[in-house]
């Protein structure tokens, strides 16, 4: 039985294929102009990796942007539930997930079954999201993936006072002009990002063990800064943090498919009675 999950974000799209509760393949691509194209491409990459075709998927759940429009998906689930489910699969001791994506950040609480209990997300302002890092990477002319290591080499973080993500880029440019090192700026940005997210976390609280999902969790300086501001260790996950949403979608696909089996079975029994 092959189950699939696909998650379209603002910057990247991911797909995960599962068989017998194990990950067969996972993909991460840069988003296309529309969600359907992004989902299709992410799934094609994952299928190629697994040596499978779309027809071999038994059930597919989509999540993220345009999740109700993905033609090859059978069902859609909110990305908040998917991140909870995916993190829970990777580590059942997790109670709180800090998910930082390209344009959003969420603090998600899950129950003992990995189902959504409570959450909070940024819905008005992009402060404290991946865009924070994108802008800085652009200013430095480096890949966003290289910012984490750069920040870890910093020792004296610069103070980033702007709230707006768009203004942060200018702050970084000024610090550069003042002769501050890129390492100290990258570290300052990582700490500022963690502080913005912590404000959000304060509104919903932390329960159980904490992990991070989303692309920004790959930035180790942000992870360290998060640990410092929230006062809890961040559990490393055994899966790529960026595919946690798609993974959760694939798990929902399996749960839902097997639930239908049960329904059919029960109906048959009922009729037999």
């Amino acid at each position, binding site marked *: 039985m092959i189950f699939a999950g696909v998650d379209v974000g603002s910057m990247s799209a991911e797909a995960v294929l599962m068989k017998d509760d194990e990950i067969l393949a996972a993909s991460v691509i840069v988003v296309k102009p529309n969600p359907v194209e992004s989902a299709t491409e992410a799934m094609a990459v994952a299928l190629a990796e697994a040596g499978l075709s779309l027809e071999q998927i038994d059930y597919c759940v989509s999540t993220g942007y345009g999740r109700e429009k993905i033609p090859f998906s059978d069902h859609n689930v909110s990305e908040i539930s998917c991140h909870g489910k995916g993190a829970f699969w990777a580590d059942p001791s997790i109670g709180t997930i800090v998910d930082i994506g390209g344009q959003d950040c969420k603090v998600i609480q899950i129950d003992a079954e990995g189902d959504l209990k409570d959450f909070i997300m940024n819905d*008005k302002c992009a402060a404290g999201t991946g865009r924070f890092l994108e802008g800085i990477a652009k200013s430095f002319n480096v890949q966003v993936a290289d910012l984490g290591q750069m920040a870890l080499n910093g020792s004296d973080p610069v103070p980033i006072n702007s709230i707006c*993500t768009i203004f942060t880029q200018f702050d970084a440019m000024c610090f550069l*002009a003042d002769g501050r090192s890129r390492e100290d700026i990258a570290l300052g940005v990582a700490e500022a990002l963690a502080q913005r997210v912590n404000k959000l976390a304060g509104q919903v609280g932390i329960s159980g063990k904490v992990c991070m999902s989303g692309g920004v969790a790959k930035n180790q300086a942000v992870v360290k800064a998060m640990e410092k501001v929230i006062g809890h260790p961040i559990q490393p996950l055994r899966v790529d943090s960026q595919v946690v949403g798609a993974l959760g979608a694939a798990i929902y696909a399996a749960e839902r498919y097997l639930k239908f089996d049960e329904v059919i079975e029960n109906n048959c029994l009922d009729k037999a009675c």
Partner: protein
Amino acid sequence: MLLGCDIGTAATKAVLIKDDKLLHKVKVATNANPDDALQRVHAAFASEAGISATVIEQTAITGWGQQKVSAQHINANHMNCLAKAAVWSEPSARSALCLGAQQGIALSIGKEARLLDYRVSDKCANGAGKFLDVISEALGCTVEETAAIAELSTNDLSMSSQCAVFAESEVVSLVNAGEPVPDIMEAIFRSLIKNVATLCKRVRVKGPLVLGGGLMNNHRLVAILNDSIKTETAVFAQDPDYMAAVGAALLAKRGN
């Protein structure tokens, strides 16, 4: 001859004033380097108007880069610059609004160009020039072209995002959904002006309200603002971009 210079986060604007008359103006990119920007201002005055730095009696500087300039100058208070410049442009001015790249400022003005109250909005890009930079880039046009594009709008479209980052994504989705670009642009303008109008309300602006800052070169934005705040307005004489620079030059005269 007096030099007034407004070193903004994006552009540095400078004017030369003699006997309260504007003689010459230049604009250069700040590039996060105020000292260098001021040098380029002097170079431009020399090459464009044949005016050398030696004939300038006093230099007054205002704006973001004010504290970062090492050359001899006096610092002019930004709010005071705007108040003086507003009255220089419109003698009966009772309030002023200046929309820069990263902030919006509204102030109310009393007798003799005296500053009575002011509010600064600098937390969110929506309401400032940067907002339009981000959206123009997403739509593949220049900021200068936006007014003419918005004027072609025929349908009211509503934007749900206020944040520049979210609005940028929403704009791309709207384009992909087949919405006409002029309608999107007009919706962006309305979103921006909504924030500006809130700022104006916070200082209870009264007419005549003098409008300055680079965004006020955009006649469509000015028209939407007029509709929204229903106050008598006047765009800063000459070029709204130079409002604070003119104010600085006027303050240089007083040796403030």
